[in-house]
């Protein structure tokens, strides 16, 4: 049940942390009873590029590290491209996750999907 160095790095030095000053999309998933809540703040420009992104996470080391990694992976990407980023890719980028953390704590991609689909709905993008 140990974390890889990469996980520990993202956990100890999370990237894109906190709440953006300016954002136009938000996605939140998880709940306290399962122990993980992840909220993404996304600034999407008129070309549908993710200009900036940040996260807030209540959760274990894996939850924080996957949040951090996900933001890094999608920043600067077109939203449709960003939607292709999967949990497995996030875990892979982190050098792997303990089996029992694979699904419960790897929620940032879900949060991103939520943020983007809300954004799309609000802005009439299909």
């Amino acid at each position: 049940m140990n974390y890889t160095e990469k996980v520990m790095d993202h956990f100890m030095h999370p990237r894109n942390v906190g709440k953006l000053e300016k954002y136009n999309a938000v996605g939140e998933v998880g709940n306290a009873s399962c122990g993980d809540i992840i909220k993404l703040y996304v600034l999407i420009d008129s070309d549908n590029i993710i200009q900036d992104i940040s996260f807030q996470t209540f959760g274990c080391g894996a939850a924080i590290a996957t949040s951090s990694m996900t933001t890094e992976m999608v920043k600067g990407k077109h939203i449709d491209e960003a939607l292709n980023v999967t949990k497995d890719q996030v875990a892979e980028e982190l050098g792997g996750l303990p089996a029992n953390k694979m699904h419960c704590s790897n929620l940032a991609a879900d949060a991103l999907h939520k943020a983007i689909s809300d954004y799309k709905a609000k802005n009439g993008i299909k």
Partner: protein
Amino acid sequence: MEKRIYLDNSATTPVRPEVLEAIYPFLKELGGNPSSRHKEGRLVKAAFEKARDSVATAINAESKEVIFTSCATEGNNTVLKGYLSGLRSRTGKNHIITTAVEHPSVLSTARELEKKGTEVTFLPVDKFGRLNLDMLRSSIKENTGLISVMMVNNETGNIYPVKEIAKIAAEKGVLFHIDAVQAIGKIPVDVKDIGCDFLTLTAHKFYGLKGSGALYVKWGKWASPLITGGHQERNRRAGTENVVGAVGLGKAIELAVKEQSEESARLKKLRDHLEKRILEEVPYTRVVGDPGGRASFISNISFRFVEGEAILLKLDYDGIAVSTGSACSSGNLEPSHVISAMKVDPEEAHSSIRFSLGRSTTAEDIDYTVERVKETISQLRSFSPVYDKFLLENEKKSAWRV
């Protein structure tokens, strides 16, 4: 290893030097089998039986009432399974009473028995983790065979009133088992004074070796063994004796009991200082447990808005070892069953950290720990969505009030 502050003494403790000294001859040259008739066997047998005497003395039992086991988990299994199968077949009694805050070695075993047809009552606790003795009394039925309650809770440090429970059990003619794992060396444990029938302990919680424990069985109350085979331990536990473990246990318990009152007082001061500072200096924290009765070496503190594992890992990085819940349930993503049984809401249940002090703990350790805790909590809260929401709601409330 860099300087570390080990505040996980409820999970396990390192072997103390006196124990190492006591076992060393049995690692170095005295390698006989205590059941052997020759000199190599007799020398080892003598030390092994002396260790049994030490355990007996420490808990005020007789030597023949002490059975060496591989750990308290085995001891608890032996009482619950072995005892019950014996009792059921003799008397038909098939109901046991335990609590919702027991260690998994009792709890899972009771659940397994339940699946196989034993009736089990899991007594609830209140928000401080306390039992209701009236409820205990009224849950005793005609077919109740056994009550199993721990002496000191491994997550909160709560002390349970085993002497009162023993009295109730005796009145009703029900056998009483105590899991005293976290009590040895922390509070006095006297089987005669308590009046229990079974009591389990494990060496590694008081600076003995992991893989070595003892089970007290009141003389005359033995039922049937969990592990059968050779004639060891008066036919109550088969298998070649763990000589090194038992000799270490004997020395460890002797010292633990001798030093108990002084060491408990010392740790109480340190623990109280830790709690006072954290509660004063870190907002939205509280102690989880019974304010009126906790063993002095454990402090379970909830840090709202942040998750326990994240705290654990950050402190670990800073050189401080603490835990979330019990070590044996790590790998489990559920919040602690003990904290949950105290009706703590799920978010807070995920936010609790257990600090457990021990022989190595100093006042400097505590102050350093508080500093690191403050820093860690404020860092983690800085990006906690739960904390953010809480602040916003508070702002709104204040805005309304204006």
